[in-house]
């Protein structure tokens, strides 16, 4: 038996149980495709970021002894369509079984269901092992209710994971410190300096230009500021916890015309591509708070955890409801 396992561009979870063992008969497939660059008019940094992170993931998997087939955007064998690429590989490598991780979007979910219907081999769907709660958790929780409520969803997740909990009570006696989190920023405290990630992405940028896919926005290819692998993502997380978290909550709603980042975590890309797990992000913030409660107050860390364990999971639950 020979198995083909698909990894989509936002499924870059190196901690996934798929990778615990090297298997001789398993082939991983990753594709940079026009169907993905063209379904919306994307920002150039988004296309570059996804492709760069996918390539890093493929390299890491290969270094760890896994077999990977990777189609770059301009490869001649790349059919630029998920179904065509998969069918081609299945024939080429005599694949007898196909596996994929459940996509986060309906678009890809239904495309893969269609593809599987047309395949003559067996298939199996796995979870991405990324989110804190399952895809149908919110639906089940609010079954028969007229409205879904973020606050009760958030409290349930906090209890389930014991995030900032003292037994069954929230640490500090309050669930929500949102009212402490509405300050304007007038230049002090100073915004964090020394962001740890600077990537050179000129080669990928040139390839994307050659491919003639349409994009918007600007890029500085010699200094790309988004993390493209897990170790860079962990550096951004560490930087955030040390430098920005002490003031995150207070100024999370503040806006400044010269400071785009203020005290924000800049982790959304690393999280949404699954290079980081929300649990490790929340735990890193809690550890930073426990280690330095004088610099990081409960309100700062609660405000951040609300975004990751509350809002982000809640939105995904609504989408799949």
């Amino acid at each position: 038996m020979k198995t083909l396992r698909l990894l989509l561009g936002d499924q870059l979870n190196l901690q996934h149980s798929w990778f615990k063992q090297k298997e001789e008969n398993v082939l991983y497939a990753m594709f940079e495709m026009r169907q993905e660059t063209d379904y919306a008019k994307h920002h150039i940094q988004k296309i570059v970021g996804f492709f760069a992170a996918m390539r890093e993931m493929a390299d890491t998997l290969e270094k760890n002894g896994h077999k990977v087939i990777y189609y770059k955007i301009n490869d001649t064998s790349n059919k630029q369509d998920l179904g065509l690429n998969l069918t081609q590989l299945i024939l080429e490598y005599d694949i007898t079984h196909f596996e994929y991780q459940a996509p986060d979007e309906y678009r890809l979910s239904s495309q893969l269901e269609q593809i599987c219907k047309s395949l003559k081999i067996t298939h199996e769907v796995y979870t991405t092992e990324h989110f804190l709660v399952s895809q149908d958790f919110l639906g089940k929780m609010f079954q028969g209710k007229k409205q879904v409520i973020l606050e009760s969803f958030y409290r349930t997740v906090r209890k389930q994971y014991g995030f900032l909990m003292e037994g069954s009570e929230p640490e500090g006696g309050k669930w929500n410190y949102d009212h402490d989190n509405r300050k304007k920023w007038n230049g002090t405290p100073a915004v964090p300096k020394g962001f740890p990630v600077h990537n050179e992405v000129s080669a990928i940028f040139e390839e994307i230009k050659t491919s003639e896919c349409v994009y918007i926005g600007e890029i500085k290819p010699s200094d790309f500021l988004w993390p493209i692998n897990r170790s860079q993502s962990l550096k951004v997380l560490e930087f955030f916890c040390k430098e920005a978290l002490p003031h995150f909550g207070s100024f999370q709603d503040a806006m400044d015309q010269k400071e785009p980042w203020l005290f924000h975590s800049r982790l959304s890309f690393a999280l949404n591509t699954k290079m980081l797990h929300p649990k490790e992000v929340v735990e890193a913030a809690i550890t930073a708070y426990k280690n330095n409660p004088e610099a990081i107050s409960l309100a700062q860390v609660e405000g951040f955890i609300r975004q990751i364990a509350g809002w982000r999971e809640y939105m995904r639950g609504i989408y799949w409801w």
Partner: protein
Amino acid sequence: MPEFAKMNYFGHERALPNWFWTGETKMNCLSKSIKQSLEHAYAHHIQRLMVTGNFALLAGIHPDALDEWYLGIYIDAIEWVEITNTRGMSQFADGGIVGTKPYVSSANYIQKMGNYCSNCVYEYGKKTGEKACPFNSLYWRFYEVNRPLLEKNPRIGMMYVTLNKMSDTHKKELFEQAEKYLSGIESL
């Protein structure tokens, strides 16, 4: 909810102004937020919600056009997170599944939470007349136009108490100002 992608509670139809793709507008908060997004593929949640999203909702932009914009411009935008935040949280196009009321504000909130207003062509404290900040008249027009859909919402009721207390002359001025701005939306 695959049907989320089709929801348009207010029936908004207006096209997205071209300056959403360039940042070339005299409204400083929108100009800076959009230009920052083009430069970094990023804006934080309040810039997305209370500047670009707020303006789009007040101006009655079609949620399809807005989805396309948010889905494209932000590096973290994937449909599951983009569409629920845009149509749900920001545009109330779901009629209240994600949120309990539309997130709209006049210039006051933007002035209070940031420094965009300090060097803007428009005056945040002015509701009508020359250089009045568009957010102010659009804000009251939004509530007036959507009265049948929003007046009974317990979290909004107070806005209608305020609106109902305004003199007819003042309301007429406000709504005329708003319509003037909307008809010249490309040159705001």
